[in-house]
């Protein structure tokens, strides 16, 4: 399986995701934002970090880079695209995903381990997980508060396009378990065709038993096939 990780000035989690991908035998390329062509890839990853310092709006400036237009084309043609944290913000800013990521409701940067529930495993990204499985993942962000209008929200809920929701240790999806105020505890969403996944939690941070639990591995294993 071939993967491409897009690197912007200010991306920080590019090495982290590359390590996780290579650990699972992906043939990975790091693609600098100034490139005008994407290598042939089965999976394109837009990693976390602070591209362009999060200046103006998180992801706003990266969304205008050369390589993103290639990513947009690939996405429209059905390529698998994973946007993590800042990557999710970039996918929204460039229009591949709908909605907005606002400042955390607590108004502070929040970095901690959280739980999400796998609402939908009938897709290429989460098929190795059980339905309703509870995953421990890590978040670290200032603007992770997902918001969208009522119409789009209904579309997301009705069409199984919300694969991950914040929950507590026992799987209860409630206010207390929501770290940033996201509408309906949304931690990640799909586009209509389910080939593009944007998520705030970092799966690559839960993929090494020396450091932590390994609940993030399932995502990469799902994508392997």
């Amino acid at each position, binding site marked *: 399986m071939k993967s491409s990780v897009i690197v912007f*000035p*200010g991306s*920080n*989690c590019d*090495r*982290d995701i590359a*390590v*996780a991908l290579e650990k699972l035998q992906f043939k990975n390329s790091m693609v*600098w934002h*100034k490139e005008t062509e994407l290598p042939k890839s089965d999976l394109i990853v837009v990693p976390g*970090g*602070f591209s*362009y*310092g*999060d*200046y103006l709006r998180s992801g706003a400036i990266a969304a205008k880079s050369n390589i993103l237009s290639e990513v947009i084309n690939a996405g429209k043609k059905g390529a698998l695209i994973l946007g993590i944290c800042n990557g999710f913000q970039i996918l929204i800013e460039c229009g591949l995903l709908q909605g907005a990521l606002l400042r955390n409701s607590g108004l*502070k*940067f*929040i*970095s*901690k381990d959280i739980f999400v529930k796998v609402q939908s495993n009938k897709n290429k990204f989460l098929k190795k997980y059980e339905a309703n499985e509870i995953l421990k993942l*890590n978040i*670290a962000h200032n603007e992770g508060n997902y918001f969208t209008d009522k119409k789009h929200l209904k579309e997301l809920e009705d069409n199984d396009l919300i694969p991950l929701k914040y929950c507590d240790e026992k799987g209860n999806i409630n206010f207390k378990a929501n770290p940033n105020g996201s509408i309906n505890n949304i931690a990640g969403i799909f586009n209509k065709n389910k080939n593009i996944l944007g998520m705030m939690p*970092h799966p*690559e*941070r839960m993929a*090494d038993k*020396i*450091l*932590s639990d390994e609940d993030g591995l399932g995502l990469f294993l799902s994508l392997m096939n």
Partner: protein
Amino acid sequence: MTITKSQIESHGLKTEEYDKIKELLGRDANLLELGIFSAMWNEHCSYKSSKIHLKQLPTKNNIVIQGPGENAGVIDIGDDDAIIFKIESHNHPSFIEPYQGSATGVGGILRDVFTMGARPIALMNSIHFGSPENKKTQHLLSGVVSGIGGYGNSVGIPTVGGETKFNSTYNENILVNAMAIGHANKNKIFYSKAKGINKSVVYVGSKTGRDGIHGATMASAEFDENSEEKKPTVQVGDPFTEKLLLEACLELMKDNSIISIQDMGAAGLTSSSVEMASKGKLGIELNLNKVPCRENNMTPYEMMLSESQERMLIILDDKKEKEAKKIFDKWDLDFVVIGKTTDTNRLVLSFDNEKVADIPIVALSEKAPLYERKWNKPKISKNKTKVKDLKKIKIEDALVKILSSPDHSNKNWITDQYDQVVMCDTIQKSGNDSAVIRIHNKDKAIAISVDSSANYCKADPKSGGKQIVCENWRNLISVGAKPLAITNCLNFGNPEKANVMGEFVECINGIKESCEFLNFPVVSGNVSFYNETNSKSIFPTPVIGGIGIFNNLKKILNMKTKKTGNLIIVLGKTLGHIDQSAFLRENFSIHDGPPPEINLTNEKNNGLAVLKLIKDNLVLSAHDISSGGMLVSLAEMSMASMLGLKIYKPKRLTNSIEYFFAEDQSRYLLEIDKNNLKKIESSLKKNNIFFEVVAEVQNDIFEIEKTFGMKVNELYNCNNQWYHRFNAVN
């Protein structure tokens, strides 16, 4: 033009110092030269009050590759790996503008580390605020924590811990000490010593603005009718540019293009160019018209003294200039040749085709004043408090009072604002005795801890200095690491006052004694003097940042108790010393008395004994005993796992208060399997190490038998409230 007395004063120089400048130049200085001397001769750059005493500290052993004198210290951790680290202060700017002051402090210390060729792998900090009742404290705490997080998170380096303390001594002088740790190949360390004549001096990074230039030092002649526009400004950090600079420098460092490299920190272009030339015993010539400026009409004075952030000075191999520029262009950073090295041993500056400064390098470096300031031996308080003279207090009430106090409360409110996991090598985060970071792609890790004891140091500077090194050593051992070396940040008041100087000298003597005895050298550091307002100096606050090593990843410990039925033993004798304890401070507001004694032999033997037990797989969790005493440390172990403890009544000391709240040093709490007790006993007896069984792990209840009991949940709740309450928006 002649320099006036008021200009000398406003530049922070004494008349005698200016006389010396005239002598060294053979003439009067001009204003630009005066500015340059004032920057290089100030305390921060010259260490004029401290150098003589700092020389006492042990700085070498077989693992030290580079001691103090470079941008940061370097130690060898085997297999071609080196760790580069340093701690530095940014106290005054943080008091003025807490967010930017602390952010730029983090930026500066990161540059000190990556300028030597290391990829930064962790950040830590030691921050001290005034009393919570002081009206500035909440704003300062909030701003500093946001600033540290904002900068570190954006650059993508995990901030894995530190310490936060509150004391009215810092009401008008907060302390923000930032520590950066990096990993490098030991054969690829870059130094600041300039080499070779006629080599290009290259400026890279952000443009130069008017950041940080002191208003008083500008003569009225420098202002025109737009003087409002030229007013000095606070340094603003740009972590995005720092990240670009970091990546560009590390990319350039992959080959041998760089001859020498120095970051522009305090006194910017002045200190970096002078230090490079001074170390290389060369001269340096700069054409100031080439300096990339952010503002229009910047003067040479402004350019040389600007403290704009995120800039470096590099001396490159001439053949590699083109390739190097390509790298900086890729990262969208300025790359400009602004001068060259010479054999004149002078700093020569030109602007608009005129020579505007010409100073012998040695005048700015080696010939900078060195003072042996007068110092008084500090008075040590001998007023010991006897527990029997105190109002009766229940042990559990005293415990809750300490656990819910600002200094001992859980700091998640702070650490949740720091990304601790980015770079995916954080094995252990803050909240443990030490943070543990894996060396990327290797089966190796380092432990890091930052510690200070201002109360002990005020009560008895020498003893306090000794103690704080020991506490740092203990924190590294408690996670199972072998302590290697330290960096120190020495925060003191006005060195021109004999009492303050006495505190400094004695703290150094104490630090020296412990470092020598424990073979724990000082490889880098920083001195911050003049932390005083209205003639009131802060408590002497030396901050120690220590590094330890793990040669495999299998025996890394934390303080979380593991299983009911296990025993907790205390290694090291409890004598009952409660003076200068959290118990007396929090429950009775007693701040008087001598700190606990340090017995270095016991400290060393106990520490080595703990490491041996860990090596023999006999320890399941560990925690050293420090502020608060044994009961607080036991509570911390309990809260980490949410398992309870049944603590036995003390067999020896009849006074339970003294036993449980004493802050006697050199003690560790270790969780062991009952079945290994005999083995442990014989191992410790062989080396004359004192230990006793103090508790048993159980579910739910934290109790001292026949004295009190409470649910661990209750302990947790009282320990987790303070920060949220203090920072709640009303």
